[in-house]
């Protein structure tokens, strides 16, 4: 899942302050699941902004709408009827959603209300942690199902650095040492010898190194 967090109120206020009629657009996918940009957060932000500007003496109109998925043109199309009453769009979706809205409605300024953080999993209610860096060439098969690229602070591919202390990373004791996790799993799986293989330098072309990526499924694209 893509995770995000609401931007600091001050920044959001700053970005929309020139506008009086704001269309606040949430998304019912990832950002709902990570409680950053679903209907509820949209409602809270709308209320907060209305109060702020009312307090300042120049009230704003805020229209709330939460799309099923803000990164699909068909859903984004649903905003059309509302657009001409809006001076600006404030998006609570991840960067993908905000950009899709901007792409579709060229004449409208679009501002992000959340910071898109990472691809992660929820560890428990209210806690999400990074799990994947989208390198485009998955190594989990040789790292016992724990990704050192996403989860080692130095993305080391050949084992723990000298800073690994009792299972934690030197960078922050709240971070598990990815290589400790890998090693524990290898032991559990009886595959210790796997560790001995030197993993060669990674080809980053499948990742960001190769520039913006896209996937084309010929059979579907046609």
């Amino acid at each position, binding site marked *: 899942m893509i995770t995000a967090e609401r931007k600091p109120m001050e920044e959001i206020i700053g970005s929309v302050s020139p506008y009086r009629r704001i269309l606040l657009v949430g998304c019912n996918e990832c950002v709902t699941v990570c409680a950053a940009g679903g209907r509820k957060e949209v409602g809270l932000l709308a*209320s907060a902004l209305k*109060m702020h500007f009312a307090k300042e*003496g120049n009230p704003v109109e805020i229209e709330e709408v939460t799309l099923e998925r803000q990164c699909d043109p068909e859903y984004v199309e649903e905003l059309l009827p509302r657009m001409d009453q809006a001076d600006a769009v404030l998006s609570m979706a991840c960067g993908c959603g905000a950009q899709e809205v901007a792409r579709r409605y060229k004449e409208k300024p679009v501002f992000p209300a959340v910071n898109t953080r990472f691809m992660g999993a929820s560890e428990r209610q209210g806690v999400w942690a990074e799990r994947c860096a989208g390198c485009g060439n998955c190594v989990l098969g040789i790292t016992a199902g724990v990704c050192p690229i996403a989860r080692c602070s130095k993305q080391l591919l050949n084992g723990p650095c000298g800073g690994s202390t009792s299972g934690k990373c030197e960078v922050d004791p709240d971070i598990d040492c990815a290589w400790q996790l890998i090693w524990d799993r290898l032991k559990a799986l009886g595959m210790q010898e796997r560790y001995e293989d030197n993993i060669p330098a990674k080809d980053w072309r499948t990742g960001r190194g190769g520039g913006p990526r896209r996937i084309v499924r010929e059979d579907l694209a046609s």
Partner: protein
Amino acid sequence: METFEPVIVAFCCHYCAYTAADMAGSMRLHYPPNVKIIRVPCSGKVDAIHIMKALEKGADGVIVAGCLEGDCHFKNGNIRAAHRVDSVRKILGDIGMGGDRVEMFTMSAGMGERFALVATEFTEKICKLGANPVKSGTDMGMHQAAC
């Protein structure tokens, strides 16, 4: 300007706080009439949005009142409510309203005095804080609009 009479919304859980308020009644205790109670099954039912909307619509203060810790009829609704109130206070701080207009209290069904005391003290506090700026703001806004 004549004396400021704040409007205060109190979300009270059915099993403790609301009962305590009734209790204050049967004990004939006095507290300011500014406090208007909205009954909810559990303080855990009070949505952050409800609190925000109350202020947005012009309430000067909001009380969320639940059971004593450990007494929640639904296990931990009151604790969740307390966390939620904290987060709302933070948002209010961020938009320059100040978080003090919202507060969580806990009490048992029998604590009529405590309810009356809470209502009285909170009302005094809000009087000190003055009117909800959202209202004055709008006035001022219209004023500006006028001239």
